[in-house]
């Protein structure tokens, strides 16, 4: 299982003939994503890596029944591309483009919300549902199938965290980068709610950074609405106030949005915060074993026979998981 994307996801790539679009269309296809169409106005009838190109998203959706759009067009055209995808009837839009004006994004956000469309990004690396589908630019080889959901405002920092999990034998259900801008389509809470409902996800890693109060709101949500363990990391403890730290959204303004405040909010909600991304696997393992013990306490009344059967089942599932993770690591090592 997974969130937002899966085997059924049919992807149309907006800006497929561009440098980034063509490269990542091929990468997605190689991962196993069902990339059904590309769009570049004026290039209908051509193909990129065997993927048919259309003049408009509407044409692509009509011909291929694509339900998800991924956007690689330059910032000046990104907003138009999102509106086009929304009007063409896709249900998920993933905008990779960095540098989209915030005021334009406010209009987009309002529009897609009334249409009931989910948007991820902009300025994000996209997402991967392990073994099923990858939409965006995340390197697929660092992810393996497993029980951990990963959500982050960052790009390469997310890869670092995923890689740490994979090396520690902790695979993932879905890894998602929600974007580093001020105005984004999907926030932490939207994602945490999905992870809570996803049967395969057993724990969540949440990677935040300075700016805004999304992490604080997410911490409250975890405390009040989540049964699954969550561990966190917050980047920007050393960031000075008033300076934009690369991401448009990563800025401490008027004394709010500091890392210290966020760490405090997370810890108050029972979310342990790692000092380094490499500490995340250890924290996840601790939390998951606590959750198991808690679960075991609840089911103590179950008769002996049933219990033995259950734990045997669990053990085989776990061994299978470990084997899969090891295999994937070996595969990556070989690729390198």
């Amino acid at each position: 299982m997974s969130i937002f994307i899966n085997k059924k996801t049919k992807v149309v790539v907006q800006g497929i003939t561009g440098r980034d679009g063509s490269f990542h269309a091929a990468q997605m296809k190689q991962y196993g994503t069902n990339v059904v169409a590309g769009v570049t106005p004026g290039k209908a009838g051509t193909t990129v890596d065997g993927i048919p190109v259309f003049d408009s998203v509407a044409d692509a959706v009509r011909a291929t029944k694509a339900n998800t759009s991924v956007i690689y067009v330059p910032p000046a055209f990104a907003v138009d591309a999102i509106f086009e995808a929304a009007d063409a009837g896709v249900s998920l839009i993933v905008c990779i483009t960095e540098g989209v004006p915030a005021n334009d994004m406010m209009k987009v956000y309002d529009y897609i919300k009334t249409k009931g469309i989910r948007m991820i990004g902009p300025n994000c690396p996209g997402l991967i549902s392990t073994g099923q589908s990858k939409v965006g630019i995340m390197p697929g080889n660092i992810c393996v199938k497993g029980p951990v959901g990963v959500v982050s405002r960052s790009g390469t920092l997310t890869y670092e965290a995923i890689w740490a999990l994979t090396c520690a034998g902790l695979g993932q259900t879905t890894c998602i980068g929600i974007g580093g801008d001020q105005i984004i389509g999907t926030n932490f809470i939207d994602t945490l709610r999905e992870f809570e409902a996803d049967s395969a996800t057993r724990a969540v890693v949440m990677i935040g950074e300075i700016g805004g109060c999304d992490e604080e709101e997410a911490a409250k949500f975890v405390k009040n609405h989540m049964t699954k363990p969550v561990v966190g990391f917050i980047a920007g403890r050393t960031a000075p106030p008033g300076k934009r730290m690369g991401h448009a959204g990563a800025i401490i303004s008027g004394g709010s949005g500091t890392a210290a405040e966020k760490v405090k909010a997370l810890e108050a909600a029972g979310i342990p915060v790692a000092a380094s991304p490499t500490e995340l696997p250890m924290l996840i393992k601790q939390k998951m074993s606590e959750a198991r013990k808690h679960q075991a306490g609840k089911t103590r009344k179950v008769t002996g026979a049933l219990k033995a059967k259950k734990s045997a089942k669990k053990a085989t599932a776990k061994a299978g998981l470990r084997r899969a993770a090891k295999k994937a690591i070996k595969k990556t090592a070989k690729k390198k």
Partner: protein
Amino acid sequence: MKIHEYQARELFARAGMPVPRGNVATTVAEAAAIAESLARPVMVKAQVHVGGRGKAGGVKYAENVEAVRVWAQKILGMDIKGLTVKKILISEAVDIVTEAYVGIIIDRVTKRPVIMVSAAGGIDIEEVAAKTPEKIFKLAVDPILGLKGYQARDLASKLYKDIKLIRQAADIILKLYDVYWKADASLVEINPLITTPDGKVLAIDAKINIDDNGLFRQKEISAMRDIDSENPAEVAAREGDLSFVKLDGSIGCIVNGAGLAMATMDLVKHYGGEPANFLDIGGSSNPQKVLTAMRIILSDPNVRSVLINIFGGITRCDDVANGIVMAYGELKPEIPIVVRLTGTNESQAQKILKEVNLKSADTLDNVVKEAIRLANQDEIGTGRI
């Protein structure tokens, strides 16, 4: 991007908002000439990108041209919170009856532009916001429909009782909203919005911050950038398409991705070092960018060691390695460098780096620890080759 008050009020005036007459000066003589042409008492106002100018002594009342000369002399060249005053605004002084506040910001929570007004405007507005937030009224505007006349009147009625004043203020709020959109602003502010004894509403201060992501279509506003008021290393970084923030530590950091760059800096601090900077070389891996990054970092005399941390995704490690080799040959750094490259094309990168015999580390934690060790070693005088 920030623009100066004199530039912001020019945008206000062009939008039809009432602002006092005035002009900007860079010398005492210019200041005196402007004051003479106004033929009235004036305010002499330091133009620096920092709040609290008045409290720092950068805003003064001048009764006559002679007083303008005295204050201009004092304020030009004055240091306000680390910034040198190079420009002053000479603005007609007006009699003030009341001071209010009007501002518009991007609100991340509602994902809408939020207009804030308060009858308790003036230099202590931040204190008002902190201690008596009920004195600030807010409206989240529908970004597609825009601000309606009745909404502006409603906000204005929180400031004044007299309908004549309310109408003037509502008109100003509508025009301010227009300036906000047209300039791709992330913040516009009038503090204070004043009333005069003869019943006029006037914007006597103006502040506009521009969303950097909107600058590509704001040619005129982009040209308003005051390079003089910025850190030269940050200007050089921007020209090289790098994201850079100068800090005071001794460990220079070159990283790909903003989040990872921040996390790397945090780890430097965690293991007992101090980062010299934030530097994100971005998604593409042009070797030229690595060279520019290295040049900027090596020009900082505080830097004792350089840490390069790359997690290849779109960024290809071999491209970065080529950049490092290029920088090594061209800049011949005397301080130690430690590199960690992982991800896309990692093995090719390792081969390239062997050519220059650079120290490398395998993990994030190790590259940070090594950079700190090398910096400390340098301090006791053994590291410099």
